């Protein structure tokens, strides 16, 4: 039975990674799951310098999901290179580094710093709804998506995944823009912008007022967008948004994703990633499927 996939030129032992920001750089969940079981670990967004993020409360629960407004707190690329890459290198898994910035220059600084590092792919977060500059401001405008993709591609030594925002009228436009800019792959969805109000205190549940919604609640939107994008561009797609079980992951795969990421589900079940991998294997066994490629994009109209 073959679960391995080639994703933008990188061979993954299986199609399951972690969703950026939900898994740190792997050290904490590494106490609960053997990271060598994962196709890849996708790390928390890293910037050129340390970012403090937003004030708390930064997270709250919603029906079947959650909101976060972490605001991309991160220790900066230097610490990341010195501490987090060596940690992950102990495991037999691919490393996808999620990159964030306020300006094109900041993104480029991180990308250049990673050029000589032993990491497998870069995932460029142009879709974070929780920072004032950069993030989603790039990701909602096809022109800017194409520009920044092209700039990054000029400097990047690793294949580049552009991470798209679902907070758009037509996701195929930003997907095509990223393709036009030279992206090697696309990942989606980042979080949907949401809000919760604490009615007893008459205040926003998050200090940032709005936050990014994730978890099982968003899955139908994510599956729809993955399907649309997989049919609109030629690039491989890393699908995510609400994956909690192997069944969820298989929906994304059948919709056209060649890889999937598990995010919020880790918070409910620390072994969600490995459970998804085992569940996919189980499904393939039961349905006599030899190769995961038989399932990628197999949904029939």
């Amino acid at each position, binding site marked *: 039975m073959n679960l391995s996939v080639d994703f933008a030129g990188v061979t993954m032992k299986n199609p399951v990674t972690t969703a950026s*920001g*939900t*898994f*740190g750089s792997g050290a*904490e*969940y*590494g*106490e*609960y*799951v*053997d*990271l060598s079981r994962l196709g890849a670990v996708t790390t*928390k967004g890293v910037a050129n310098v*340390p*970012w*403090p*993020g937003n004030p*708390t*409360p*930064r*997270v*709250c*629960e919603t*029906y*079947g*999901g*959650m909101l*976060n407004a*972490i605001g991309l*707190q991160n*220790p*900066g690329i230097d*610490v990341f290179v010195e501490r987090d890459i060596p940690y992950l290198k102990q495991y037999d898994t691919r490393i996808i580094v999620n990159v964030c910035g306020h300006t094109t220059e900041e993104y480029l600084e991180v990308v250049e710093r990673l050029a000589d590092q032993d990491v497998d792919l870069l995932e460029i977060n142009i879709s974070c709804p929780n920072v004032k500059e950069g993030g989603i401001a790039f990701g909602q405008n096809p022109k800017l998506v194409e520009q920044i993709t092209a700039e990054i591609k000029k400097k990047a030594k690793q294949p580049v995944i552009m991470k798209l925002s679902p907070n758009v009228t037509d996701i195929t436009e930003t997907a095509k823009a990223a393709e036009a800019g030279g992206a090697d792959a696309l990942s989606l969805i980042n979080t949907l912008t949401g809000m919760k109000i604490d009615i007893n205190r008459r205040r926003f549940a998050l200090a940032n007022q709005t936050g990014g919604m994730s*978890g*099982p609640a968003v899955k139908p939107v994510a599956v729809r967008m993955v399907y649309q994008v997989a049919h609109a561009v030629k690039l491989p797609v890393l699908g995510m948004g609400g994956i909690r079980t192997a069944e969820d992951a298989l929906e994304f795969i059948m919709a056209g994703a060649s890889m999937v990421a598990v995010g*919020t*589900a*880790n*918070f*409910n*079940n*620390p*072994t969600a990633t490995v459970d998804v991998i085992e569940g996919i294997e189980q499904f393939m066994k039961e349905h006599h499927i030899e190769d995961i490629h038989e399932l990628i994009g197999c949904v029939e109209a």
Partner: protein
Amino acid sequence: MADKKKCLAVVVSQEKITEGIYSMWLQFPEDYNVAGMAVPGQFISMYCGEGSRLLPRPISICEIEPAQRKLRVVYRVAGKGTEEFSGLEEGAQIPVMGPLGNGFTRKSGKAVLIGGGIGIPPMLALAKALKEEGAEVSVVLGYRDGDLFLKKEFEPYADVYVSTEDGSVGTRGNVIDAIRENGLDADTIYACGPMPMLRGVKAYAAEKETEAQISLEERMACGIGACLGCVCNSTDVDSHSHVHNKRVCKDGPVFNAEDVTL
């Protein structure tokens, strides 16, 4: 090493100890005895059965019986999740992860333990442990009114002082008022309670140049340090985050009062 896990605990007893506050004893599996790993000041993440509520509920450990593989939690019904817990009957199973975070660092000498409101429960395990280790233990418990839940349970381990907001029992006012009124002095202060109380404790400890360990609360998502949801402000640049943030779940919930800005 991937040797930690989320496990199923069994509710061995559940009791409403006062209006809106429940006491629950949980027993852990033989092959994963959370009670055997726990120290006072740590917490556990308790999970809901209801699928619309996915995030863990962090609850402090109130008593520890390692040999019996049992932990006690005392919790207030604050919303839907704790309401669900309060409905669990003897024999019910509940998913739990823990023990999580760092507990109190127990020092010898004179200990003053301060608990305010629903911050009282974790002080019980601490009082017991300190007493066993030979410390001289005083406990100051801050209540709103004369409903002195858990107070009696401290008496075997400590001299117990009480403050009430309405003055119905003990010192009228807050825990610091009670400390001053009773002339308590401490080598180490340990505290858990609402933020205004902790600010008072921090200021008092600074004034007296006494070490204070305080237990903080923040909204959590992962509970293990991965999501950066639950940070507090650290006085210095933190060695993990490289900014002025520490994670309450992983670096805390107990901090030296000096190390955090409240």
